[in-house]
């Protein structure tokens, strides 16, 4: 049985009925939020999708305005697991340009080398002294 949160957004494709292949469409803005922020939210989503009997999953970003890089990374990990460990087909639909850019950055990152060493200042100062500076 599907988790209750999916019942409203689930539909069965007529063509798939004979094979009992279910497709669920997840409206991410409605299920999570218009701005998706945390990894833990994606992890909860992942667990629900793993538990569902659906073999086809559509993640609909239509009303999603933004996604953090961390949440996007967690989502890519989730897609990998759903596809390779649980043999489900997952499609991402309707991301806006900003969301697409973050998803692409995370995906590209997974095949790129680590970026150059980052410069972080080492001139440590006492906080009270810092507050005295103009």
């Amino acid at each position, binding site marked *: 049985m599907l988790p209750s949160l999916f019942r409203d957004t689930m539909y069965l494709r007529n063509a798939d009925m004979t094979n009992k292949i279910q497709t669920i469409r997840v409206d991410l803005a409605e299920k*999570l939020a218009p*701005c998706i922020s*945390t990894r833990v939210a994606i992890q909860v989503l992942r667990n629900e999708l793993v538990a569902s009997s659906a073999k086809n999953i559509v993640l609909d970003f239509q009303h999603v305005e933004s996604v953090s890089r961390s949440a996007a990374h967690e989502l890519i990990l989730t897609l990998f697991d759903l596809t390779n460990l649980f043999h489900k087909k997952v499609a991402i639909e309707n991301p806006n340009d*900003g969301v697409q*850019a*973050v998803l692409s950055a995370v995906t590209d990152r997974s095949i790129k080398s*680590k970026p150059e060493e980052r410069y972080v200042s080492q001139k440590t100062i006492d906080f009270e002294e810092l*507050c005295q500076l103009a």
Partner: protein
Amino acid sequence: MVGSGNYMASIKINAPNGTQLHNQFAPVFQALKQGPISSETEFDLSALSFLSPLTTLPLVSLIHEIGCSFKMPTNSQVSSYLDTVSFPTGISSDFVARGMTYIPIGRLSAGDTAANERLISEFGQLILNKLAPLPLGAANAIHYPIGEMTTNIFDHSKKDTGWMFGQYFPKKKYLDVCILDRGRGFRRCYEEELNLVVDDAQAVDLALRGKSSKKSDERGFGIWTTKRMIVEGLGGQCFILSGSAGYIAMPGNEQPFTLKDVSWNGVIVAFRIPDITQPFDHTRYLE
């Protein structure tokens, strides 16, 4: 108005001397210096005629966690403002936030993931409403840092509660945001997750460089990218504190700092974003 509980030690919270973002933490630093904070501590806000998120939110978290009492500002406008933003309890529901014209103090609780996600989203939306109209892409400059810093609370702090608060200052033409937890902080996180023993200053340095506590090169971008977006991209300021060490970044000045005789359990991240007048492409800063 006085918060619940008897008190023995009253700590007067004074207005900060400077106007930079890090100056707004000085009143909290001075309060922490005055000794251990307990349920018998009273924070006396009566003299304050101005409060920024970086002053307010650490006090809110201490009041919530430790059960300190407090004395409200005598300035009726400031007192009324604090009531309006739900000081000191904060709100935990986006349905409440939706009806607000001010940006409320947000209280995130680990138990309700969906409610948190919606509250964080609504928090960002309330900020955007205050800043509207915004140029193309500017909304990402608000949502990105909020998203990254709030996810860190639940990924790393090992604490059930996180806090967020923002305020737009129309005359000063900037937005201040503070996000914090009262968890284990960077140093203990590295030690417990990676068996990496470092001091607070080294831990802040590692966090800035993107050293993930999760044994993955594909993590550790949040703080770095947030700092770059805000400071390099928007000319704003960042403040990071964990334990007794922190880091400030503003155009032309980046500097680690240490707190003498004071330590903050957890992580505080604050940022200041000046009015955004040009289109902003956040993808330039993504790695």
